């Protein structure tokens, strides 16, 4: 996958292309960055925040144990942010995901704690419940023509209420060990004793190989179609940058207990949904209905079906987040998932979504979610109270979107 530097900076004037001198290279990189200002901007902001807290916490932030923790702590918000990004790109909003997360958690407890169903069966059932809940809301929005804000606001109240009814106001647990292992555990230890986690290392190397292979294949295809490609030097630089980024994270994780299983799930979701939004027909249709609904309709896009599916998908991801959350705390609580919808929405907007729809990427949602996550984690380590954390996160959201608006105005459209 080549998600960050996806747009080939084809703006390079044809004359300069072959030369590949130092000057031209720099120019090309700057051009590419200007093109994807929002993504690079947020990536740099994330880097800055990480660096800031790394210094502030005397390096505690980047301790392998803490990186693992960070992933686990934020996994449910990141899962929700992926779905939310799709919803917002399609020009809608979903306020119900926090309540739905809690509702599915309560269903999980009902299935596994009260009725002793085997956990894999319960997981499938829970995902189905989420999908149905999402589908019902999606039906009202797409076919009933009721604004998503209203439908999901109703959903937010309804699901929260149902959660309390199912749990009778109590906290219910514990969950079977198998599920706990998936939500809290790490990949198994195999092979000879090294100082690192072998499987994680292997996985990291495989990922690097995959990235390189994909990039090379992409480049060959571009040449096949007679399109401009990055000059060889810059292409190499890009490969090295991508590979080393993956390597750093891999080493960090491998020097503790290895990669959390939830991280793998997240990785699959990121790659899968990222690929879908960029390359699949349905992804294009989601961008099209968010960008200009009447034009999409007149182009033959089945807008109602697409909207319906987007909400069905959101429901399923909310169910996944609910399972991970419940299993992590080993209990279903009526107060679970409070304000998750707002965190997910904030993550999407920090990551480059637009109120009007039609804009945004899945990677952006993850970056936005990580910005919030690192802020949370870092501020906890430094000892900032939750009161001030809220204030700071609010200001970061305002600043991120404000920067984007200012940047657009400066470019002049």
């Amino acid at each position, binding site marked *: 996958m080549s998600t960050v530097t996806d747009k080939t900076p084809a703006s390079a004037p044809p004359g300069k292309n072959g030369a590949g001198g130092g000057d031209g290279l720099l120019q090309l990189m700057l051009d590419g960055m200007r093109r994807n200002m929002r993504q690079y901007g947020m990536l740099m902001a994330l880097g800055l925040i990480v660096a800031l807290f790394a210094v502030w916490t005397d390096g505690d932030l980047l301790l392998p144990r803490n990186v693992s923790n960070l992933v686990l702590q934020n996994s449910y918000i990141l899962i929700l942010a992926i779905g939310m990004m799709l919803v917002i790109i399609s020009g809608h909003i979903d306020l119900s995901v926090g309540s739905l997360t809690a509702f599915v958690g309560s269903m999980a407890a009902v299935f596994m704690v009260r009725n002793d169903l085997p956990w894999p069966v319960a997981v499938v059932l829970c995902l189905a419940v989420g999908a149905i809940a999402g589908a019902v809301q999606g039906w009202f929005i797409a076919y009933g023509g009721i604004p998503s804000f209203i439908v999901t606001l109703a959903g937010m109240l309804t699901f929260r209420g149902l959660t309390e009814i199912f749990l009778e106001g109590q906290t219910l647990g514990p969950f079977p060990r198998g599920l706990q292992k998936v939500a809290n555990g790490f990949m198994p230890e195999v092979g000879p004793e090294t100082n690192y986690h072998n499987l994680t290392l292997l996985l990291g190397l495989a990922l690097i190989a995959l990235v390189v292979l994909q990039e090379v294949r992409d480049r060959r295809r571009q040449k096949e179609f007679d399109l401009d490609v990055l000059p060889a030097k810059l292409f190499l630089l890009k490969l090295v940058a991508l590979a080393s980024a993956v390597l750093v994270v891999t080493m960090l994780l491998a020097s503790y207990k290895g990669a959390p299983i939830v991280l793998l799930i997240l990785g699959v979701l990121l790659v899968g949904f990222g690929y879908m939004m960029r390359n699949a027909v349905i992804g294009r249709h989601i961008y099209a209905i968010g960008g200009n609904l*009447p034009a*999409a309709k007149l182009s033959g896009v089945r807008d109602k079906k697409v909207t319906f599916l987007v909400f069905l998908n959101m429901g399923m991801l909310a169910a996944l987040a609910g399972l991970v959350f419940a299993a992590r705390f080993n209990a279903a609580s009526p107060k679970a998932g409070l304000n998750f919808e707002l965190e997910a929405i904030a993550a999407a907007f920090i990551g480059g979504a637009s109120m009007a729809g039609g804009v945004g990427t899945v990677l952006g949602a993850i970056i936005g979610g990580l910005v919030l996550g690192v802020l949370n984690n870092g501020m906890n380590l430094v000892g900032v109270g939750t009161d001030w954390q809220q204030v700071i996160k609010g200001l970061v959201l305002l600043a991120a979107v404000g920067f984007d608006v200012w940047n657009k105005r400066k470019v002049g459209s």
Partner: protein
Amino acid sequence: MAGPVLEMRSIVKTFPGVKALSDVSLTVQRGEVHAICGENGAGKSTLMKVLSGVHPHGTYEGEILFEEEVCRFKDIRASEQHGIVIIHQELALVPYLSIAENIFLGNEHATRGFINWNETLRHATELLRRVGLDEHPETRVADIGVGKQQLVEIAKALSKKVKLLILDEPTAALNDEDSGKLLDLILQLKEQGITAIIISHKLNEIRRVADSVTILRDGRTIETLDVKAPETSEDRIISGMVGRDLEHRFPERTPHHPEEGTAPALEIRNWTVHHPIDQQRKVVDDVSLTVRRGEIVGIAGLMGAGRTELAMSVFGRTYGRHAGGTVLKDGKEIRTKTVPEAVGHGIAYVTEDRKHYGLNLIDTINRNISLSALGKVAKRGVVDEHQERQVAEGFRKSMNIKAPTVFEPVGKLSGGNQQKVVLSKWIFAGPDVLILDEPTRGIDVGAKYEIYTVIDRLAAEGKAVVFISSELPELLGMCDRIYTMAAGRLTGEFSRAEASQESLMRQMTKDKEVSR
């Protein structure tokens, strides 16, 4: 005339990367109607934005003198205080407020923040009488037609004690009747001493109302002509706009004479459509027509004749409530109840309103072109981006879309280039029948010629083309056959030889009074 009321000297305006105005000077005499024309992107609108303070003083070079006084407007309010009022192409009215509320929006008759309704209504009534609009001032703006809305804009300008009225393509969205009224009003206001600048693509309009015309090209003033002088012909103005002598405004085409016997590519029989809200009203009433392969068939009609409604209701029932009628493709009856069905049967509809119904303005050229036929560049639901890009590059070259790359957002292109993207999109879908709804609206002469060439080429390739247009000369120049519509009904059919502006117009205005 007492000398110039306005002088703009050597105006230079640059946007990041683009020089929109490189050296424009404009002199407008007191009490005249001064037309400005030029191709899209020539800098007309930018110049007017500089004048009205949309681009504030300091963001451009050069000097503006209004009534012998140097002006440095910092915003629109400042220019309005001097009596310069601009009416934009897209009207700036709030649909759910009344006419009176709109007229005095931002300029209310109020004491200590509370509106004086009696004074508001009295003044509004007076202004409406002045512009000749017979509506109650408390009517909602949403409930009156575009032509009347335009008059409300002018009333609003009058309320600001306008001395110089700037109209940016005021008749672009109006039918001939409303256009005529508006032009009369401009002449009437001129009698009352109001100077007007009118930006227009329509040369007959310029000849009718303007005293002089300034031609812009590529951000420069080319010349100012006296419209009343005998040597200022339409061709003279056009050659100034495009910088070359335009001998032919339409491509040379050999009229198509379809062979008898074969079934027409598209046939519509007894098609009737009701208004989506007012379901008693027939918007399209028992229309039957045919188009053969290789043929360009025009549909002429005034605004409200039901041409767009006919096309959109056939194309996937995207307008109105269908009441009856059948569609036949190559002699066989087909279902076109949804857009995918219509596209599947090889029908394409290129909208008259490209910004709202044709393009995703925030998306790139390549993604807009592929949208209606993504399947062609996708395998098993996955789009091949490289192939898609190659397709788009192909259209960029063959359609002469002026953009550095196909990754440019279409919102940044000029109107003519946007239209070429919409056309590319539907050509890529590979239809047999193309319904083109006002394909040259709001685009400049040069781009028009390019679009005509494309249409001609499509017909030569054997596609059936339905050409809906309000500009009779272009229908006469391009079509093999022309239908006329009035008030939802087909009122005539003309071969290329029989058709003339007069004969078409007679049928287009037929029955209008009777059916009301």
